[in-house]
């Protein structure tokens, strides 16, 4: 079989790119190493960061490209690539509409989460979303999916990437495509050796992600001289229960008003920060672990349609510890009772006074939401550590998703999208921008591939 474009990886980025290309009339060969598609996308929280949508307007939420861009820039701490922020922002609303037009249904509730000045988390069932995109790809008749097909290295002719060597059923074969190769192969959270090389501080974190996320695409492009972005900013996301193996998603009660304390019973961070920064702070605490402490009204303010804010389900699953007094709660989590009661009293006084002298917390999350006191029994603790769900860093690309080499020149015929790409997030990470960039950058990459015919 010959195809116009080869895409490596069957997650959200790969299928979004395949659908975009197929709708433009191109034929696509999509390779997935695993027996099933979905990858880390399907395991994610299903959060998409879009701004200025009809859903936001209907709920009276004022958001815009400019506010989204400024949030991304602020969160990235001066490290994020402005060109990529521009690419994300100027294509996000169209991608939201494109998803809707393809039949994607969003949860009706919008939430504010990590790094967001206004509620802009648009929630989907991520596994269903990838299946929907896959079904739309099938319906075009132009996308051939090969599972169990592992891309091993990139093939070049006259300096241009023209295909991949693929291992399938023990047979290595070469596949070529005139429009080049698009890497949508995900990150490397399941490759401890690579994570350790770039982020030794994450040793205490829990590693979660698609089983195939071992850095295949990163290494194939690295071999051709690709440059990297954001590698020092691999961080765990705060809120993963450290000893529960059933529920992979983080729980962010802090964004509804909980505080985070360490095993000594002390706060250690401004809890409204990006959950990547919270994760890094958590890993520096004794035992690399913390507890989110909340009261009953905060627990009830959760949102069971958003995985990271679904407190009720976790309560039913026995993941929250519960007590009628803070002293009893402290005993259960083996924190000195007087330390916990003192920490909560000091925090409540700060909320009342409107000034958190200890850590300067001013909002529930980022610039959104007024702080609340922790005062109404029962009280709850959610054991939390940091989990590396995604590596948020990787190949340097330009705004058209062409992979850039270490001397700043595009590697002809090689494109990348999704988690394998670095540069959008910078030093921290906004909820919904990883799954968002999978779709948005996947579509951009497909358009670039088709625009760059021949060569």
């Amino acid at each position, binding site marked *: 079989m010959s195809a116009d474009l080869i895409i490596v990886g069957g997650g959200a980025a790969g299928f979004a790119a395949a659908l975009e290309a197929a709708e433009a009339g191109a034929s696509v060969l999509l390779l997935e190493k695993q027996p099933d598609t979905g990858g880390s996308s399907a395991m994610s929280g299903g959060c998409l960061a879009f701004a200025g949508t009809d859903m936001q307007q209907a709920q009276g939420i004022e958001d815009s490209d400019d506010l989204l861009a400024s949030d991304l820039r602020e969160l990235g701490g001066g490290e994020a690539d402005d060109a990529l922020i521009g690419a994300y922002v100027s294509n996000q609303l169209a991608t939201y509409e494109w998803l809707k037009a393809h039949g994607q249904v969003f949860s009706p509730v919008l939430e504010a989460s990590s790094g967001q000045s206004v509620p802009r988390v648009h929630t989907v069932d991520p596994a269903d979303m990838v299946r929907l995109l896959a079904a739309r790809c099938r319906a075009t008749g132009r996308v051939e999916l090969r599972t169990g097909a592992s891309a091993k290295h990139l093939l070049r002719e006259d300096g241009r990437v023209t295909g991949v060597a693929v291992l399938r059923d023990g047979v290595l074969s070469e596949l070529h495509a005139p429009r080049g190769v698009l890497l949508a192969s995900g990150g490397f959270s399941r490759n401890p050796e690579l994570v350790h090389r770039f982020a030794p501080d994450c040793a205490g974190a829990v590693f979660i992600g698609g089983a195939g996320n071992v850095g295949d695409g990163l290494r194939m492009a690295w071999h051709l001289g690709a440059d990297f972005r954001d590698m020092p900013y691999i961080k765990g996301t705060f809120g993963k229960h450290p*000893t529960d193996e059933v529920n992979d998603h983080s729980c962010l009660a802090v964004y509804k008003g909980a505080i985070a304390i360490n095993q000594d019973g002390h706060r250690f961070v401004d809890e409204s920060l990006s959950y990547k920064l919270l994760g890094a702070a958590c890993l520096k605490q004794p035992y690399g*672990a913390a507890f989110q402490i909340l009261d009953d009204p905060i627990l009830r303010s959760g949102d069971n349609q958003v995985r990271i804010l679904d407190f009720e389900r976790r309560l039913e699953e026995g993941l929250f510890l519960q007590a009628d007094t803070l002293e009893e709660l402290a005993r259960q989590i*083996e924190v000195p009772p007087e330390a916990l009661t003192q920490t909560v009293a000091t925090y409540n006084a700060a909320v009342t006074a409107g000034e958190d002298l200890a850590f300067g917390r001013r909002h529930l999350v980022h610039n959104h939401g007024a702080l609340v006191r922790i005062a109404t029994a029962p009280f709850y603790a959610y*054991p939390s550590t940091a989990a590396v769900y995604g590596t948020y860093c990787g190949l340097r690309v330009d705004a058209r998703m062409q992979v850039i080499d270490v001397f700043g020149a595009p590697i002809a015929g090689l494109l990348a999208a999704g988690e394998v790409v670095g540069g959008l997030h910078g030093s921290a990470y906004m909820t919904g921008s990883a799954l968002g960039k999978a779709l948005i950058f996947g579509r951009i990459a497909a358009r670039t591939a088709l625009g760059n015919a021949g060569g």
Partner: protein
Amino acid sequence: MQVVVLLAGVVDPKWRLGTLGLRPGTAQVEDTALPRKLSPFDEAALETALQLRDADAAVTVTAILTGGAESDGLLRAVAAFRPHRAFRFGDAAMSLWDPATAARLLGAAVRAATEAPALVLMGREFGDSDDGVLAPALAEAEGWAFCGLAHRVALRDGDILLHRTRGARDEILHRRPPAVVSITNERGNRLRHPLMKNVMLARRAPVEVVAPPTAPPPALALRAIAAVPPAQRGGAGRVLTGPVAAQVEELAAYLRASTTGAA
């Protein structure tokens, strides 16, 4: 009051048992390469012991895990729940297929914990022995009282109160210590999660091992062991095709027919 919980662990059911066999020249099962975890019934027994500890400062809990060095990881996981003492008993030779021999060894394991056990808890299918015969065999061998399939245990005035469900009936039974109780799993005894602090401390702590006494060879010799291949499924299902309305009609007709047939 001395409470002993006997744990065996099982091979993690997420793993395939394709390589199961005996160690060459022995009657010992070779499963050292397979990760082990507590069965749901082991977990329920452990949680029951922890709840007794939490409710009464006079309760001392000893957790005993049977097995060889391959179970040390599992023992650390158990130690992270902070029983008063946790140790591994013996090597791999527990002869679970021979209840009389196994019960003698389990009795020795309990005595290694305490000379005066008040309550011995074990999962209803200790060590994947689906017949559930080991707990009563232990009680019989030691002359202790017995109750099977309890899901909640309380201590009151030196008496042991046991809750269990039989059909539509809920029973509360009394036993005088010492007693062996096999535990079944239920929402109320779902094993809690350990604190990260205790997981990390248990990882660094030394593992205590108690060697079993030299036992006579089991009356029943184990000659071979093999994994039973999973049953082949399929055949009965059919995916409906065609227009949705026609599919709905066909499905409704099928359901009507099967309801009528059942009546």
